[in-house]
């Protein structure tokens, strides 16, 4: 599913001062692209991701997701889009601490109204994809950071969304664990998902085929890497 933002602005009011987190940003991302968003701290990466993930609404501008005008949607429609179309992976994992791995992964299906029997199958297959079948009934606190992020990925992909958004998914992990997480994202890209990730690390960004750089809320550069051409030729 393709997404396109056009002339998006996001302004925060801090007292009397305006913070312009996004300024006139226009980006269009096609289906099955693998995009890394980079830029210095405070440049608006997370803000842009949140807009793309329908978690936040821009102050102005347009957002079309698979032909639908997101800016016209109400809260419940946005919730449905987040549930069906988008899988979000956060830097801080954002798992529900009381619930075990299985229930965390199952939750999007619960809100999606999937029957319990089917839910179990889907959740288990998602957990298997991230290699955590033997940790199914563990609580998040009983897992390592890498394992938690894999749970978060399983939760993001359980509903078979076409877009995976990851805001610094490896930010809290060491480089080996980070590579493991990236391998999972690479696989998801290979099976047809659109992947957009935010990162500070060059090595992580190199997994992507297109790098968008932000600075002060503006798009500074938007380049397609050589890798992308390689991927298009089936070389990886």
């Amino acid at each position: 599913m393709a997404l396109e933002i056009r002339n998006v602005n996001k302004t925060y009011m801090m007292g009397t001062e305006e913070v312009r987190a996004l300024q006139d940003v226009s980006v269009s991302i096609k289906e099955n692209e693998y995009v890394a968003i980079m830029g210095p701290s405070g440049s608006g990466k997370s803000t842009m991701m949140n807009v793309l993930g329908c978690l936040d609404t821009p102050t102005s501008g347009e957002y079309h997701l698979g032909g639908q005008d997101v800016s016209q949607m109400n809260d419940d429609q946005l919730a449905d889009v987040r549930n069906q179309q988008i899988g979000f992976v956060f830097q801080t994992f954002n798992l529900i601490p009381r619930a075990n791995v299985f229930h965390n992964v199952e939750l999007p299906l619960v809100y999606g109204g999937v029957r319990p029997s089917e839910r179990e199958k889907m959740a288990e297959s998602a957990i298997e994809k991230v290699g955590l079948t033997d940790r199914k009934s563990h609580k998040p606190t009983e897992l390592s950071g890498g394992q938690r992020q894999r749970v978060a990925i399983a939760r993001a992909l359980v509903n078979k969304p076409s877009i995976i958004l990851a805001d610094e998914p490896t930010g809290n992990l060491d480089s080996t664990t980070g590579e493991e997480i990236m391998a999972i994202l690479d696989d998801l890209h290979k099976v047809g998902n659109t992947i957009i990730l935010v990162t500070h690390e060059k090595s992580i960004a190199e997994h992507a085929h297109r790098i968008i750089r932000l600075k002060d809320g503006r798009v500074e550069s938007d380049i397609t890497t050589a890798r992308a051409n390689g991927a298009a030729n089936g070389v990886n």
Partner: protein
Amino acid sequence: MKALYDTAESLKIALAAIKANKSRGVLTTLGIVIGIMAVVTTMTAANGLGNTFRESISALGSDVLYVSRRPWVISGNFFEFRNRKNVELKEAEKLDRYLANAVAINPTTNTNKNVKYRSSTLEAITIIGTTDKHMMVSASVPESGRFLTAFDVQFKRPVCVIGSEIKERLFEHVDPVNKRMKIGRTSYRVIGVMEKQGSAGFFGGPNFDRQIFVPITAFMKSFGGHNRDFSIAVKAPPNIALADFEYEVTGEMRKIRKLRPTEGDDFSINQMNQLVGAYNKVMGVIVIIGLVITGISLFVGGIGVMNIMFVSVTERTREIGIRKAIGARKRAILSQFLFESSAICLIGGGLGLLLAFGVAALISKFLMPASVSLPIVVVAMCVSVLTGVLSGFIPALKASKLNPIDALRYE
């Protein structure tokens, strides 16, 4: 079908949340516990009192009219009735003659006397002069011995039938039948003991177990017949409405007293239902007081639950953000917290109900038969859930309206 899953899921999530905060939830429910206990106890006690009362006044007979000088239940001006003349014995005889269709007519009169058996004395016992017809107008029967006969009445025999409390308190371990006892200064022989009636005494009603029946003729000989006020029990025939029969009796009494059409009745016609009416009034007040207490405790409890739900929502702001981020609609969040508050209240209600069962058991043991009935249980549970929904609504609404990104950022 989907709504059903949603419900089940919300319930599961709610129960998990409560389990995680057990002690806090239980403390919060104290108000609910007391409220539900109050409502269940009030309703159970009211039921128990009602049954006891109805049972104890059943001796009066539901199809019997009592012609007396004054109404049993006086509302309004008491003095209006003070100057009325007594109902006389000969008026009973006339009524007997004129009211051909009455099943039975029984004049009674009463006085208070001290009674004595050997060395024990009971003070101010109601002595009732009556006839053998008493058996036809009243549902009560002797438990041992026999009741007065026409023969006893005709020959003014000094015999008496005593109530169960007299037997217990005056005779203790002796069989009273055929014993001689003193009523006032006259010696009477006990010929029977009445069955226990249960007491309506605590409403200021008559205590039928603290009575002694003697032949009306012997009564007048022992205690004087001059200037005595009588009450005439008239049992209605089965095929006529009591109101119609009352009209008939009133008519005959007015004829006997030669009242002109412009004059009001100078006598009263009483019946069991009047006592029931008076009882219901008293009970209504008691129930209202009980419900006010219930309402107050439920209100206080509800505020407590609301408070704890606000805390719960605030504490779990991030969790709400996560749920919204993965696609929970407003309604899902709303119902999650509504279920949580309802479940807390339901647990409180359950505890209150358990306590109420205990209180009911105590009441049964020491006061009167009382048992918690199923409808009361159902009402109590519904009230608990309703309290939960009402007190959880505002916090739940707040939770459901949270902006996902703000909720996620919440520290």
